[in-house]
């Protein structure tokens, strides 16, 4: 069993890799479609602009691969920009199409607060039985760095929010697809807990045949 961490030239992914190694997970950092399709779970990390992220995925022929593995219920975790590209559209540097797994638009954080939203902020947990958030107490802090937020059309996918002038979707999930706006790899022991939870989800998942 292994977890594929997608390397698609979107900033530093070393920290994500190190965090999974720290918790003892088997990982492969890869851009190969075959390695991603055969993985027991897939992580899409990354920092940067929405448009660049989607463009890189397309150039590496991973855009459809990701849609396919999500369709097959392979456990999937998008981190930061990896959460954002799950949505239909992103407004960063013009309107760009995303993967469209979740309905909604990724928009700039409304004015009146310092942007980027950078630092430790508290989670308000909405979904009490989220497997990803298991063991995380309401009000626990996580590390955020982002200027855009996901506006979800279907609010039921939001498992936690954080308050930054407006309520920001901090984590979303539907079936085996998860996304976190914060950086678990930089959120100390609580962040590592979330990654361990994801590894456990991967270990117990039953995928459809692709």
């Amino acid at each position: 069993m292994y977890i594929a961490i997608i390397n698609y030239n979107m900033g530093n992914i070393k920290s994500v890799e190190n965090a999974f190694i720290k918790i003892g997970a088997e990982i492969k950092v890869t851009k190969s479609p075959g390695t991603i399709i055969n993985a027991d779970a897939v992580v899409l990390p990354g920092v940067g602009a929405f448009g660049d992220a989607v463009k890189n995925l397309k150039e590496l022929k991973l855009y459809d691969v990701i849609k396919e593995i999500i369709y097959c219920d392979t456990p999937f975790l998008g981190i930061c920009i990896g959460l954002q590209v799950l949505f239909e559209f992103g407004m960063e540097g013009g309107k760009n199409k995303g993967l469209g797994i979740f309905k909604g638009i990724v928009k700039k954080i409304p004015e009146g607060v310092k942007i980027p939203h950078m630092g430790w902020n508290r989670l308000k947990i909405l979904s009490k039985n989220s497997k990803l958030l298991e063991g995380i107490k309401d009000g626990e802090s996580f590390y955020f760095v982002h200027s855009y937020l996901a506006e979800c059309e279907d609010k039921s996918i939001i498992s936690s929010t954080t308050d930054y002038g407006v309520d920001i979707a901090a984590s979303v999930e539907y079936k085996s697809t998860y996304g976190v706006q914060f950086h678990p790899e930089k959120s100390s022991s609580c962040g590592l807990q979330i990654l361990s939870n994801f590894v456990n989800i991967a270990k117990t998942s039953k995928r459809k045949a692709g």
Partner: protein
Amino acid sequence: MISKRIIPCLDVNKGRVVKGVSFINLRDAGDPVELAAFYDREGADEVVFLDITASHERRKTVVELASRTAEKVFIPYTIGGGIDSIEDIREILRKGADKISMNTSAVKNPELIAESSKVFGSQCIVVAIDAKKTGSNHWEVFIHGGRTPTGLDAVEWAIEVQKLGAGEILLTSMDKDGTKDGYDIELTRVVVSSVNIPVIASGGAGSLEHLRDVFTQANADAALVASIFHYGEHTVREAKKYLKSQGINIRI
């Protein structure tokens, strides 16, 4: 909303922590990475490393430090000290550092702030300002570890670095540094109210009340702390508990 941050700062020379840390039961308390991992477990919000290695080896030691830290530390960390090119910054960030800090090189080549923030994003670019009081409401910027005056006004320089694209300011009061009689509230307050980016106050922390004051009186976003943690006078945990009891928004 975002919590106020407590940031231990480690001075590093040739890969070793400069100020001895003897009270902590670590396998190697002179190893900056072990120490940073300890502060992570203790509840520190970030760690700053300042590499003061004075030789051509520095670039190598800085990159190594960035890389080793990424394996053991799971909070954001910043590396500063002699970083003066886009290539250095790229290398350090690629190893897993979250931010780099520049000081002398930012004054000598302000274009580096603009270029690096464009390439890597403002959130990774910290400009460190060493300021010394030279008159009523006037502080001058010094470089080369505080040895060389620049003629620049610290408040004007802070505004300028924000304009150039810096994402954060690490503001050290040279008058207070090492005194342990409190942060320079006046300087910090003026800089905080002149810019829209976060300001880390540095220099002078000697007690937990000093930490409180720099948050409540100067509205700093973060406090850099060295000796009171390194010499075991207080733990990070104690400091944060105290600040929380004083009504400050702190991550426990």
